[in-house]
């Protein structure tokens, strides 16, 4: 009896903060995988759709139709995982929302409008294939692209506000008494952070989709349809990648200026100094020394401000009290994530360069296996790159939830049951992820098994909509 009470007591005493952080991180990391597809797939589909209409290309038309169907599935999963996020802000961080909701919520209110628009036009575009005139139908896809762009900008503006809070005044007890919504949305971190995420969405979406077709080509499916799909997706990604490097570089300098402590964690700089080396990998120890890794002398200083070169002073972690900077452990996570983002980003850049040169010189995509194998991996690599970037941003901001205004521990719920919801959410999402992949693969198998790609009647021609699903028995 008393052990039962003890067990109950133990459960009741679980500190919710680490579980809330883990749950938030897990669900965001899951949601963000769907985001690039939601944002960029509509654009890719419209390219195919445009080509189909302009050049009367039947393969392109089929591609656009199938992509619009896949898009709908990923959109559905994105929508439900996104809905959960909006629950979580309140369920996990009620004190954050209670105190800052009037400012932090503003960009989300705009996000709501854009996602509304996106959802509506996805439905219209998906269901309009047969019922609308071709060009009118094409134009119903454009709002999806725009809504995706503006929606992303709004959400990331909210995250940027957490990094660079502005647009409010506080009274003496720390409550928000007035809000300037324009300042909130267009906070200092917003322009570069939204740009970086937006380009990331096109980059990751492009590589992800291209990698599927690269895999198909490796398996010998090199018909016009597959090559077209690959070319559209990979070209968009290859254009986005160099842009992303430039934006990332500017963003890094912004962090150097405005969030020096995060920058110290990124570059693993324990003490403020000049001539700081750029350490690849490496580890920060609890005594404040950095061991392992490959230091490149002076590079971190030089990159931070090429104007002053290696004599640029980089602020160290010790420039603020331990309670206001990431722990050693967190700093190591940030630094590793940084190395992964920049390392993989460089790799993807080289791959894009190869592709671009091949087009410039030989007027076609590189056809050899090495390239295709790398292209087939590029999707996963790009996702890892993006996830790492988010880890840099989020863990690097620790211990603050609102930079220099509120700490994470003061924002969390006091509900001790969070560990239970964390486990439930992880299990549910894993099941969701596995099934989503299975369903998408099943769809593609079905499409492929159907063999050739000849539409019998014109796809825009009116016809009776089929009722019900394809017969169960025939596909076994």
């Amino acid at each position, binding site marked *: 009896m008393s052990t039962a009470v003890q067990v109950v007591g133990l459960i009741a005493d679980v500190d919710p903060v680490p579980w809330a952080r883990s749950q938030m991180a897990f669900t965001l990391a899951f949601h963000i995988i769907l985001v690039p597809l939601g944002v960029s797939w509509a654009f890719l589909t419209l390219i195919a759709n445009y080509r189909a209409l302009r050049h009367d290309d039947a393969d392109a038309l089929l591609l656009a139709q199938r992509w619009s169907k896949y898009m709908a599935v990923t959109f559905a999963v994105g929508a439900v995982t996104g809905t959960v996020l909006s629950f979580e802000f309140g369920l996990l961080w009620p004190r954050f*929302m209670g105190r800052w909701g*009037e400012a932090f*919520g503003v960009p989300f209110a705009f996000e709501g409008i854009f996602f509304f628009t996106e959802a509506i036009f996805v439905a219209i575009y998906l269901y309009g294939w047969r019922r609308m005139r071709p060009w009118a139908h094409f134009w119903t896809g454009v709002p999806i692209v725009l809504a995706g762009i503006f929606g992303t900008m709004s959400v990331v503006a909210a995250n940027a506000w957490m990094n660079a809070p502005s647009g409010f005044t506080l009274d003496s007890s720390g409550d928000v008494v007035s809000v300037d919504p324009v300042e909130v949305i267009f906070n200092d971190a917003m322009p570069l952070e939204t740009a970086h995420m937006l380009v990331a969405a096109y980059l990751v979406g492009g590589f992800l989709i291209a990698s599927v077709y690269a895999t198909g080509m490796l398996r010998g499916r090199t018909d016009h349809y597959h090559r077209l799909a690959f070319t559209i997706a990979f070209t968009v990604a290859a254009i986005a990648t160099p842009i992303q490097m430039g934006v990332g570089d500017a963003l890094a300098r912004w962090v150097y200026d405005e969030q020096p402590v995060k920058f110290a964690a990124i570059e693993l700089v324990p003490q403020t100094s000049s001539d700081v080396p750029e350490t690849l990998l490496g580890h920060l120890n609890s005594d404040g020394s950095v061991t392992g890794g490959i230091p490149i002398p002076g590079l971190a200083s030089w990159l931070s401000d090429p104007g002053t070169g290696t004599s640029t002073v980089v602020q160290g972690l010790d420039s603020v009290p331990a309670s206001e900077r990431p722990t050693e452990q967190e700093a190591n996570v940030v630094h590793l994530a940084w190395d992964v983002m920049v390392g993989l980003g460089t790799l993807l850049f080289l791959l894009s360069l190869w592709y671009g040169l091949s087009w410039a010189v030989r007027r076609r995509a590189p056809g050899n296996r090495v390239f295709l194998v790398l292209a087939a991996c590029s999707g996963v690599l790009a996702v890892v790159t993006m996830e790492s970037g988010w880890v840099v941003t989020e863990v690097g901001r620790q211990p603050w939830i609102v930079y220099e205004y509120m700490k994470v521990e003061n924002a969390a719920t006091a509900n001790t049951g969070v560990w239970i919801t964390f486990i439930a959410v992880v299990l549910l999402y894993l099941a969701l992820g596995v099934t989503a992949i299975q369903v998408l693969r099943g769809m593609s198998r079905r499409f492929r098994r159907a063999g050739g790609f000849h539409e019998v009647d014109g796809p825009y021609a009116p016809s009776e909509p089929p009722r019900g699903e394809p017969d169960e028995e025939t596909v076994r």
Partner: protein
Amino acid sequence: MSDTVAVVLLLALTAYAVLGGADFGAGFWDLIAGGPERGARPRELIEHSIGPVWEANHVWLIFIFVVSWTAFPEAYASIMLTLFVPLTLAALGIVLRGASFAFRKSVVTLRSRRGFGAAFAASSVLVPYCMGAVAGGIASGRVPAGGQAGDPVDSWLNPTSLVTGLLALTAVAYLAAVYLVWEARGDDDAELTEYFRRRAVVSAVVVAVVGVVGLVVLHGDAPYVFDGITGRALPVVVLGFLCGTGALVLLARDATRGARALAVLAVAGLVVAWGVAQWPYLLPETLTVSSAAAPSGTLQALFVTIGLALVIVLPGFLLLFALAQKRLLPGEGVPDVADRTMHGSAD
């Protein structure tokens, strides 16, 4: 200004109840439709009728959350802290429901479809119940003001929450049944029309019974809202009741279009009556709408988004809705050559 935002919030809640509610209710009928053979035809109708629009409906809920945390942050924090359990269940239910529905449409083997179907149906029942229970917790004054947590258990396991949960569940079931009669009629399917007509009548009676029991419970458990419902909000309640009854009369006369409109008004009446009854309180008797409101800059930004919604979202939504109502949206997008071959190669 905060009053306007509160009214918009109430309207969004009503829209969610009416539009999203019908989706949940359809899931309820799916759940009790019987074994795979007996339930096959009603299930097919259900699936086909919530196809295109269901995606858009989730956004109402998101909109409600966003507006509440932006305009009334402290009240929002109190609600989320206190009603942690039913809200978490609702969130999990929404994931399960949305995903299983999307997948059920895309998988083809019977066994996996049945699994997804069960998950879809069960979570369709869980979510409206939890939402209703949350409303009950708020209405009965169990959520304290000031971003504080109330009782984590009693706030949703209490007489009022039980009644409001059941009321939400039965109301959406009623609404869905009326919609489905209309759908079946559009298909010229006399058998299914009759099937759902019977269910519409039964569920209407159940809603009425739960409503009357609810009044008794409110009298003891949530006196402020009881006074409101029997006083200020009485016209709304009466109107809603008349609409609900009228819908049944029209159903019996086979005027399904009018029946649908009246059923929508009846359910809308329930939500609006709740809002009117607890006016001017956001959290009855502890926090009024005006004292809970965010600074004016925030509210102005919300007005801008509401204006944008009217200009951008509403036309699109109406277009989509009109297309769906005119049955211009095929059940599942453009039929692909793959689907067609499979039809061709059947047996």
